[in-house]
């Protein structure tokens, strides 16, 4: 627990200089979007099995060490397992008597329950994986510019796209800072005799809970300073902004996007 940063990678950007990093952000965001849609469309194990090699390929090409991603997802996976256990045990639908594997009062384990929970798990993991990979391989500027360009047309519906994108990007920027701060607090309080490196999971979770208030207080203070800093740098919403970087999608970027779409169609239809 004193090394929280090793266990949470959400919001990190890791430069490896890979092909994925160099891809046009719009193409990456579009591909992410396609995969998110896929996670809702695909509803059988075979479909997910078809998607798997694509995900592995993205991971390999990005050159981000798989061990890092796995360890950084431990907390997320543990949480997911916890939620899914509930889903299985309290599976509400009427299922034929034959598919019950175990039953005790309102608690039960049935093949249907397991099947549903399995599909949900794969969906959530797919969602998590693609958004995490997007953040790991895309710098904040590219992410901002890409999202603004993609959602730009919504501006006509009076949706403040630029502001929303920047709020989202800044939220991402602060996640690692908060995690680092949480780690610092945990260390300092451990030194004072409130050990974060001892006790069972529930005790530790309770102790982490106590850190939320100070983290929020410092978070508000930081957000306040950042807002002032942005205003003094003449940030007044995105409308009049121009961009230093020009987005350029190469033919191979489009090809990669086409490949992802084709792959997903296959996975959906099998």
């Amino acid at each position: 627990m004193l090394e929280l940063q090793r266990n949470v990678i959400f919001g990190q950007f890791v430069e490896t200089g890979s092909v994925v990093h160099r891809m046009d952000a719009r193409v990456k965001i579009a591909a992410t979007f396609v995969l998110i849609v896929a996670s809702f469309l695909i509803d059988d194990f075979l479909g997910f099995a078809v998607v798997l090699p694509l995900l592995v390929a993205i991971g390999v090409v990005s050159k981000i060490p798989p061990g890092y991603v796995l360890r950084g997802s431990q907390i997320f996976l543990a949480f997911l397992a916890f939620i899914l256990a509930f889903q299985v045990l309290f599976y509400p639908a009427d299922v034929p008597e034959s598919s019950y594997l175990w039953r005790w009062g309102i608690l039960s384990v049935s093949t249907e329950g397991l099947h549903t929970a399995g599909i949900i798990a794969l969906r959530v993991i797919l969602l998590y994986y693609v958004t995490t990979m997007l953040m790991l391989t895309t710098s904040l500027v590219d992410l901002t510019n890409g999202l603004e360009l993609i959602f730009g047309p919504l501006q006509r519906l009076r949706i403040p796209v630029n502001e929303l994108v920047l709020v989202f990007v800044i939220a991402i920027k602060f996640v690692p800072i908060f995690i680092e701060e949480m780690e610092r607090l945990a260390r300092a309080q451990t030194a004072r005799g409130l050990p974060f490196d001892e006790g069972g999971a529930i005790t530790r979770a309770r102790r982490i809970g106590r850190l939320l208030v100070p983290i929020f207080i410092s978070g508000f203070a930081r957000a306040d300073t950042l807002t002032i800093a942005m205003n003094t740098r003449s940030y007044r919403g995105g409308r009049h902004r121009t961009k230093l970087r020009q987005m350029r999608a190469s033919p191979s970027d489009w090809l990669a996007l086409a490949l992802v779409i084709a792959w997903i169609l296959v996975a959906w239809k099998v």
Partner: protein
Amino acid sequence: MQPDGTPPVLELKGFSYTYLEGTPRASEAVRDVSFRIHHGERVGIVGATQSGKSTVVDSFAHLLRLGQGQVFYEGEDVADPGYDRGRLRREIGIVFQQPDSQIIEDVVGADVAFGPTAAGLSAAETRERVEESLNTLGLPYQDYRLRYVHAVSGGQRRRVAIAGVLAMHTPVLVLDEPMAGLDPRGRKELLELLIKLQRDRELTLIVCSASLTDASLLCDRFIVLDRGTVVMDGPVREILGEADRLAELDITLPEPVVGAREMQKLFPDFPTDLLTEGELESELLERLGVTT
């Protein structure tokens, strides 16, 4: 070992540490750091930012992943399986650079009481400790015990953090950048207080800083770190004597030393191991032929 056979209070043997080890963001903080600190010593661990000072401090109370054979408290390896980390942390009091991080309770009195209570002291003893600690730090018990921690000034919050550690009566007191963020008056007051405390309680005092200004008045010995390794270790005056080497390390030199280095351009043999303005003045007067 000291001549009488007692082991050092703290000993680091080839201590190395890498943050986020095994990830693409890994960064080596310290490499092969070794030193011994004995009872009652007043040691400054100094170095520029990112020289590894805070990592060394965190190792003392086993706040990091530690391999065996690297950190010893009173001769015992703190990474041994079954070693009582709780006891270690009751013996080594650490005041961190940002006092906010170590404050646990919302109310001053309750926060200072946290350590003694957790250590199992009786209510009466705890109250006594809280009163004594707050008074020692110039935060009168009656006025401050019920104040909200977030409603007092930054300088006062630092004192609350120190009081919380003092209330534990630890034999070792470690301060990480104790003067950061204080204005000149606050620094002066805290400096005097720490000198008095160390003397009265015969503490082993460890001060961690990028500045030798205050550390040179608080300590007898400096351990100088540069990019994660120990580059100098010796009595304060001996280290200050090598001012040119220190200046290369981006460490803040004490003002008299800065003055002395300038005077070396005029008097090549001018010493730099000076602690006070008065010492610099008498060296100058001597060279100017004015008898003191």
